[in-house]
């Protein structure tokens, strides 16, 4: 299993310097750099952020986990993705999902009632744009960026199996990942796809002094307030000790995860260094 790290694009008080320094430093020690997406929150736009990372990194894969697909125009999204793929020399992994908030759709002026159907069609059309080359540019990866689908239910598993290269899990203990992964594999076989789906996982972490951990909890609470009570569970699931991180990584590896991306919850460079030490 490979381990990647998230880019602090949604944590409070992040800035240009931190992002670029973080990306450069991550390039040496982590297999991928991940970004999250939310419209109504002051987090940075994921593909624009990855474009910047592409310029200062050489080897880490650049992964969105996940970009909210249906609020974006498909042709434009395909073009952006192809551009980031070209800029990075073929390192883009495009994770897409429905997102969890209706107000993101409202703000984007997109009807959320059709979002499931729109999303499925978008997945098919993205590949079509990359393959047919009418929009351009051609992505650097000959088959186009790796396409992952996120989400929790059977509709998401079916979408991942039928129209993508794999699945990106939304977070939770190894057991939750295992259960979703088994369903994705079943959906993949059901669809008659050759080969196997790629399976990606993610989790939040924070390391260091109690003050940092409190800030992390505060950030998660705020970021997930819209869930109406679920935010406490996300806070409880944050990995805040070296032992918890090691157990978690081992657990995901056991369950057949291909790549696990650990997302920071504090905008400080020491978070990356501490995580690198734990994983060393």
């Amino acid at each position: 299993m490979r381990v990647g790290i998230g880019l602090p694009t949604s944590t409070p008080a992040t800035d240009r310097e931190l992002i670029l320094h973080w990306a450069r430093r991550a390039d040496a020690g982590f297999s991928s750099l991940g970004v999250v997406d939310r419209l109504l929150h002051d987090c940075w736009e994921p593909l624009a952020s990855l474009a910047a990372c592409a310029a200062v990194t050489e080897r880490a894969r650049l992964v969105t986990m996940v970009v909210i697909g249906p609020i974006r125009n498909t042709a434009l999204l395909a073009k952006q993705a192809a551009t980031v793929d070209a800029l990075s020399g073929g390192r883009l992994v495009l994770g897409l999902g429905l997102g969890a908030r209706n107000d993101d759709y409202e703000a984007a002026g997109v009807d959320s009632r059709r979002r499931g159907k729109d999303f499925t069609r978008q997945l098919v059309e993205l590949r079509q744009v990359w393959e047919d080359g009418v929009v351009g540019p051609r992505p650097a990866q000959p088959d186009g960026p790796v396409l992952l689908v996120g989400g929790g239910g059977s509709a998401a598993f079916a979408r991942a199996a039928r129209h993508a290269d794999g699945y990106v899990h939304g977070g939770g203990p190894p057991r939750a990942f295992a259960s979703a992964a088994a369903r994705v594999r079943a959906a993949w076989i059901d669809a008659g796809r050759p080969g196997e789906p790629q399976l990606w996982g993610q989790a939040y972490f924070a390391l260091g002094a109690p003050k940092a951990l409190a800030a992390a909890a505060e950030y998660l609470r705020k970021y997930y307030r819209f869930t109406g009570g679920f935010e406490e569970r996300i806070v409880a699931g944050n990995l805040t000790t070296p032992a918890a991180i090691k157990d978690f990584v081992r657990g995901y590896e056991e369950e057949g995860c291909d790549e696990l991306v650990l997302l920071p919850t504090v905008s400080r460079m020491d978070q990356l260094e501490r995580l690198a030490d734990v994983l060393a």
Partner: protein
Amino acid sequence: MKINVLGAGPAGLYFAILMKRADPRHQVRVFERNHPDATFGWGVVFSEGSLDELEHADYESFFSITEACANWNPIDVRYRGISTRIRGNVFSGVGRRRLLNILQARARELGVQMTFGHEVESLDPYVEADLVVGADGANSLVRSFAADVLRPSIDLAPSRYAWFGAELAFPVFTYIFRETGWGLFQAHCYPYDEAHSTMVLLVSGETWRRAGLDELDEQGSLELCEAVFAEDLLGRRMLSNRSLWINFPWVRCRSWHTDNVVILGDAAHTAHWSIGSGTKLALEDAISLARAFVKHRNRLKPALAEFELERQPVVDRLQDASRVSCEYFQTLQRYFTFEPLQFAYQLMTRTPRITHTKLTVRDADFVRQVEAHFAEPATGRLAYAAPPPVFTPLRVRSLTIPNRLVFLDGPLDEGAGLVITVPYAVSSEGRIALDTPTVIGPPLPQGSLVCVQLGHAGRRASCRPMRFGVDRPLPSAEAWPAFSASPIAHAPWMPVPRELDREGMDRVTAAFVAAARHAEEVGHRMLLLDFAHGGLLASFISPVANRRQDEFGGSLENRMRFPLQVLGAVRAAWPLQLPLAVAYTAADHVRGGLTLGESVEVAAKLREEGADLLLVVTGQTTADSHPEYGRMYGVPHSDRVRNEAGVATIAFGQITTLDEINTILAAGRADLCVLERQLSPAKSGDS
């Protein structure tokens, strides 16, 4: 903390005890509508593992409860006048009143204030406390007061059940099935002390009405049931106490707490009584919640979050299992052709939690007998012992499939009895993509028996390679015309197919026949025709894809006409002694799709036309129709089709272990199983 507990059932009392035990300074008050000695529902049973958790939570009450419990491990299944015993199960039962009295005494001893005969009319008088606990049962008022946050959903099972007592102690947990002129009566009986048993009776809605139970008063219903179970009661009386016939309410909630209100036990989630875990769940809820308060030093937010985090997966799993169990008891008449041994095995393995291996641990001799009987038709003799079901050969026509394990698309050298190939298109227009094979090669001289799959992609034809996804139409310059029952596209982004005309039907039938003949010529001995997966023949069967006005559309008989024509023609061309299987869609999973009744009819028609085996799949009728994935998701469909249409089946859908396969086979849910081989966990090194 000031804590108000509403409801003095097991959950409420136990939580009060544990909180008071954790910190005597807590001020805990319990309010209950009923009298302390009132009880409804005779005995409670703990059938899910042991009560170890109680031992750690509170020694004193644990000892009193275990002393009061009746313990037994066998189960008797009385069916067709024969009683089959399965040993090694762990059960204990205790009178509900006895249990409550023990908990009341313990609570009193610890200084919990209890008020009985107290009606709750609103939450207002209670919410000034730090915490309000709704432990007020399946009809919880607390839940309804806080419904906007808890978001409960309640739906009712179609069957009717009622709790009775009986003035005799059944020797062990006993299931009784009695057929009457009104329909089937089931009794689930367990002793709760030396002289009394609980009898939970279950009937279908129709039986309930036919028997007149909807009109009878409590005494009348009691007498009727005594007459039905007279033989089992050995002349003793049944007892009633508010024994009303009700539909079981499924309660689920999005959340179990608001800022300072939390619900426990049946108030938060019900689990069907047929797996006997309602009380255990309630007590474990109380333990989990009390522990969360200790861990988080009585801070509400994290404690309540932790409680839900810990309990929800456990409760979900048990609710799912209990749902399967309830479904089983509502539909078990489909198994009435089974011999008593297999019937009992089926009952024991009704939820996925009890597998062949687990049952072997419980009662090895029972499983040995089941295995011996399972192998009898294949070997022609009833041996003392036989290999597990998966290694039992299956004879179909004159072909013997050496074992029950099926792989899709290989490998041929890893022990599967049967390997089903990828679909071969019977004609170039029926190809899914350019790389879909059409030329059937000869089978390899050794390895698994190969079953050649023949299909026509219909409106899903003319796509790009599946390596990057399905249903991706070729650019129009490279595309070829697709045909379907009606000109309706498989997905909005796919081209509209042409309606297949009579000439086209003849062409397709001839192509299937030619492919079958060719397969025989090169030496194949088994065929699978693909009438599923949204292909051409599936499009005729599903009302969603078939809108024809001619004799091939409309009624099920009409929609089946062309598929049966193809099947009949292939059957006539394929050697009589060789088996023919059909892949068929048992559920469309889309609005307006095949009904359950129709899907059984389709299966029966396919069997009559000469299909020896059905590969049962679901979904893919349209681009977005899919099953609910999960462990063994396809098996209930195989089970239904096999036992209602009387046809041999190949089960498919997230079957991943041999243990699952043995269980499915021995329980008569399928005749062969497609195994999805597990990849080794550490599959990817550094790359």
